[in-house]
């Protein structure tokens, strides 16, 4: 209901608030309205009174419940004491609290949830009496939550430990379930569709997928199957042989049961969609398939009245029971219960939806909502006795249409047949009157609750059918780039990087926003939220939506590096590079494990000595080069074309040498030289030619194919010629080009140019500096060492200086060696501690070093790398250190000190975290965490290594 409605509706609402105490369902829109200033204050006042009354009514109710409970106790007093508590008539939803163990959700292979749970149970049983029993409390899965398993445990480590031997789990994706969502795990969505014989359903899969079927026999309660009647589908071949006969088929060996033309079969309930609302024509189609006489097809054979959805404002009539005939206008719909105000009275009555039908009068102007006549408008000319079928005279065709009353709605004026009443479904993306789009999260017959995209955020609001302009058609294939240039597609499972708990499946991608349906459809706003694509990360590791940068098999050497951020809001922070793109890096900060996006230019890597250097030169980034290949040593390859063509590194080149190598390397060689593939084959067969070409000894060229060679040269950049060949050579080229082309395919020598020519590098001036010879031997010698080796020596004195060795320095391994590797992490991590807070404490071992931020050293670095023990704290950030060896005592600032990392079995002192100051023994190291046996305590604690330092004090910590 929108605020534009007048006081009348307002009053009406207050009225039913009074009578029923049930405004609770409408809380949301009342809230909305509270914000509106234009409401008459009197109505607000009346609402307040109503709320007060409600509250009292609720209290009274609660009282009743208590009384009832007491009565129950008296009646069933012999029960065991401990059960009595749980005996209240309806199990109250148990609310989790913070003192309870954590619940983690882990993704698993969809369909394997139960398997996983049972695996856990088995694991538990096996380990129960062993030394290390599983410490998790429970594992739960739900049919409704496909691909997720919920584990209760006190600690993440317990979960991780328990997961070790479980198959089909995605280890990487453990997440904490927020308190509020925990109840969802156990919330069973009611099967409110009860199976009734004669009701309608649709088959979900198999041969009859999508077909309307009627339930013929419902077996005893608990059976997973029902017998259905369906219109048999006949193979066309079969149909030809016996075109009309549909009765007992003798041609098939399997026994089929037919009943008056219908095929009857048992089918799993789970394979049926019971929530269908078939239209008249579907049903008549179904019925017309039967061989029954016309007489037999009475009205009753149309089956049970199908499910009707009512909405406030509908005029309804009771069609069953003793109250039959009373009618009125619907006020409220609460699932199956419909409350309406009787006509010409203020009395409110509530009925089950099953016993109601929409009420129309002959002469009413109505519009068809569903079915093949959808959108058509017409006048009611006949209403059948059961009130469920209505005949109307269409405005367009002037013919009579028979439809169910449920598929009709009253319209005030003639629409001139304009089909406007397109029905929308749950999760449709619709265009709204306010020129925004939204996703429908709840459908009532006349109004829709829509998560609307407004100014970049999702807003929940209600819209009437008329206020929805139509479905917004988007290409289903639309994609967008998420965080880190990850490709996002509709249907991908994504996660909001700003809010870990928000994840789900992309319903729509609209411009730069994505509408996401959260897992299981739980959560507020019908589980749909709107988020900017660029904050989403793709969880579909298997789908094609791979990050662009992952197309490159070579990992960025930067990944895993410890870096310090030198600019921007995170300046001074230290972290580990998790992922990279061309320009950006995702850095996990040591301080709070937050992952931030930082431009690569703002990163400095830190080596073991604490020296930092830029990760990439600004120029590299600006040329758009992918730094992962060449970041630290790009100078040799200033020609960018070469690099772009060879996104692969030298090592991968070598892997793919063979004729295909030529093709892969040189896509345009074919067109350029206009040579046939056969010439390639020749070329690849004669490594001698290649080789000599690569090394380019003038003698060789002159002898065998000067003209051919020149011809090609002419087509290329002069730089190349000049750099590598004799000038005379180049001059020739101009004159001979035409002849060369013809001769070229014939002579084996001609291929050699084809090889070098295509490599784009040859065309760039930058390449000359590098001497092509250096490349070619490297590429060739690796594939066929025997050949090249033998040829190399005699033919080319030239390549000597540019042997494969000269090639190697450009491999990505160089960067790896110049930038600190994994081994250095620890050292640097301490900077995170030291730069973020005060960690100084006595009796710990420290190492003197330069300040990681300013790179300055204490006393010109004369104490750098010395180790000592903190004797005394002068202030939280200054202390006196007794240096080893010399026993000098010096005053140091915290920034020049780093705690010395303890080794296994060494005594430690906590320098941060909740256990700060405690002593203990480092029992083991697990990645970034250390397992510590705290002094005096019995159990082990898992503490980040950053939070501890080697203890040098006198206290003995007994193992």
């Amino acid at each position, binding site marked *: 209901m929108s605020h534009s409605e007048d006081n009348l509706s307002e009053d009406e609402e207050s009225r039913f608030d009074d009578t029923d105490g049930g405004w609770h369902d409408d809380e949301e829109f009342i809230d909305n309205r509270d914000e509106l200033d234009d409401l008459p204050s009197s109505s607000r006042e009346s609402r307040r009174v109503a709320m007060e009354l409600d509250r009292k009514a609720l209290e009274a109710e609660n009282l009743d419940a208590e009384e009832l409970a007491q009565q129950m106790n008296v009646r069933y007093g*012999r029960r065991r004491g401990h059960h009595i508590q749980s005996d209240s008539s309806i199990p109250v939803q148990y609310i989790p609290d913070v003192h309870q163990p954590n619940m983690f959700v882990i993704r698993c292979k969809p369909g394997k949830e139960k398997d996983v749970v049972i695996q856990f149970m088995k694991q538990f049983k096996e380990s129960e009496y062993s030394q290390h029993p599983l410490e998790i409390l429970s594992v739960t899965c739900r049919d409704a939550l496909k691909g997720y398993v919920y584990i209760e445990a006190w600690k993440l480590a317990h979960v991780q430990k328990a997961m070790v031997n479980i198959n089909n789990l995605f280890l990487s994706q453990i997440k904490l379930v927020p308190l509020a969502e925990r109840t969802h795990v156990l919330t*069973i969505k009611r099967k409110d569709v009860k199976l009734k014989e004669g009701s309608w359903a649709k088959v979900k899969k198999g041969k009859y997928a999508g077909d309307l079927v009627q339930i013929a026999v419902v077996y005893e309660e608990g059976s997973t199957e029902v017998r259905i009647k369906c219109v048999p589908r006949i193979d066309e071949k079969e149909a030809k042989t016996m075109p009309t006969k549909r009765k007992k088929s003798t041609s098939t060996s399997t026994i089929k049961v037919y009943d008056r033309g219908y095929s009857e079969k048992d089918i799993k309930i789970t394979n049926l969609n019971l929530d269908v609302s078939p239209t008249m024509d579907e049903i008549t189609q179904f019925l017309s398939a039967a061989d029954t006489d016309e007489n037999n097809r009475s009205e009753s054979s149309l089956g049970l009245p199908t499910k009707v959805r009512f909405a406030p404002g509908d005029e309804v009539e009771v069609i069953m029971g003793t109250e039959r005939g009373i009618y009125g206008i619907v006020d409220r719909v609460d699932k199956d219960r419909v409350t309406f105000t009787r006509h010409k009275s203020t009395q409110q009555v509530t009925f089950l939806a099953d016993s109601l039908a929409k009420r129309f009068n002959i002469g009413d102007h109505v519009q068809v909502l569903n079915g093949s006549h959808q959108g058509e408008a017409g006048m009611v000319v006949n209403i059948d006795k059961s009130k469920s079928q209505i005949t109307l005279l269409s405005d367009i065709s002037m013919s009579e249409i028979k439809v169910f009353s449920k598929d009709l709605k009253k319209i005030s004026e003639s629409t001139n047949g304009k089909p406007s009443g397109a029905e929308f479904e749950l999760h449709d993306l619709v265009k709204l009157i306010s020129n925004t789009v939204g996703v429908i999260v709840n459908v009532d017959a006349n109004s829709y609750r829509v998560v609307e995209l407004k100014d970049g955020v999702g807003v929940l609001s209600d819209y009437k059918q008329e206020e929805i302009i139509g479905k917004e058609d988007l290409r289903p294939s639309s994609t967008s780039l998420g965080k880190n240039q990850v490709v996002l597609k509709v249907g991908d499972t994504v996660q909001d990087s700003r809010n870990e708990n928000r994840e789900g499946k992309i319903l729509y991608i609209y411009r730069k926003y994505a509408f996401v349906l959260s897992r299981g459809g739980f959560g507020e706003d019908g589980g749909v939220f709107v988020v900017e694509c660029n904050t989403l990360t793709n969880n579909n590791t298997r789908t094609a939506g791979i990050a662009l940068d992952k197309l490159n098999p070579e990992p960025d050497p930067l990944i895993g590096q410890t870096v310090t951020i030198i600019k921007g809001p995170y300046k001074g922070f230290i972290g580990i590079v998790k992922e990279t793109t061309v320009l950006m890096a995702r850095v996990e900060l040591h301080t709070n494990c937050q992952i931030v996006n930082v431009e690569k230019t703002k990163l400095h890597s830190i080596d073991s000595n604490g020296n930092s250097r830029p990760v990439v030169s600004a120029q590299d980034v600006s040329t758009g080069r992918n730094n992962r290949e060449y970041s630290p040593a790009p100078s040799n390859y200033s020609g960018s074309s070469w690099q772009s063509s060879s996104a692969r590194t030298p090592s991968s080149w070598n892997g793919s040498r063979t004729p295909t190598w030529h093709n892969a390397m040189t896509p345009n060689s074919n067109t350029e030289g206009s040579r046939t593939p056969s010439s390639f084959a020749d070329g690849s067969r004669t490594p001698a030619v290649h080789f000599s070409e690569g090394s380019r000894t003038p003698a060789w060229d002159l002898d065998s194919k000067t003209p051919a060679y020149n011809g090609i040269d002419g087509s290329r950049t002069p730089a190349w010629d000049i750099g590598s060949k004799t000038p005379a050579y180049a001059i020739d080229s101009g004159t001979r080009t035409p002849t060369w082309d013809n001769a070229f395919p014939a002579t084996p020598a001609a291929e050699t140019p084809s090889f070098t020519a295509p490599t784009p590098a040859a065309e760039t001036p930058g390449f000359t500096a590098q001497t092509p010879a250096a490349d070619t031997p490297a590429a060739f010698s690796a594939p066929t060492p025997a050949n090249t080796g033998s040829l190399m020596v005699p033919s080319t004195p030239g390549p000597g200086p540019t042997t494969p060795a000269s090639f190697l320095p450009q491999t990505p391994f160089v960067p790896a060696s110049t930038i600190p590797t994994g081994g250095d992490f620890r050292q640097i991590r301490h900077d995170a501690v030291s730069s973020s807070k005060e960690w100084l404490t006595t009796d710990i071992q420290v190492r003197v070093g330069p300040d990681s931020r300013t790179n300055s050293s204490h006393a010109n670095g004369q104490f750098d790398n010395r180790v000592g023990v903190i004797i005394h704290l002068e202030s939280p950030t200054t202390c006196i250190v007794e240096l080893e060896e010399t026993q000098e005592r010096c005053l140091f600032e915290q920034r020049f000190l780093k705690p010395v990392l303890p080794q296994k079995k060494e005594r430690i002192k906590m320098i941060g975290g909740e256990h700060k100051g405690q002593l203990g023994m480092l029992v083991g190291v697990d990645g970034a965490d250390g397992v510590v046996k705290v002094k005096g305590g019995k159990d082990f604690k898992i503490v980040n290594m950053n939070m501890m330092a080697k203890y040098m004090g006198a206290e003995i910590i007994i193992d």
Partner: protein
Amino acid sequence: TYDQFKREGCDNCESFLRLRGHSDKVKECTSPDYDGIIALMKPRANSFISKAKKLTRYVPGTYAVGVSGELPDWVEEILMDEGIYISRDNDKYPMPKKGHAMRHNF
């Protein structure tokens, strides 16, 4: 599995229902129609699952989140006497029946 149930019975209710070895009884008291399973390792710990599902008094095992089906009268009577309440949430017996039906059900 069903056989397992028949063979071993249910640790929770064996004392009063005595399902062990009685295939007909097992059949009556179990239901193939359930939703979700719980592997309950530590029912007595302060676990949300076991509290919400009122499984704190049960033995560790595999339970269903919800079961639907109908219990025979005699079983209902016994359960009543034992003080186990059958929660009737729309014809579902999520609690005790689950205890019976689903434990060892695999």
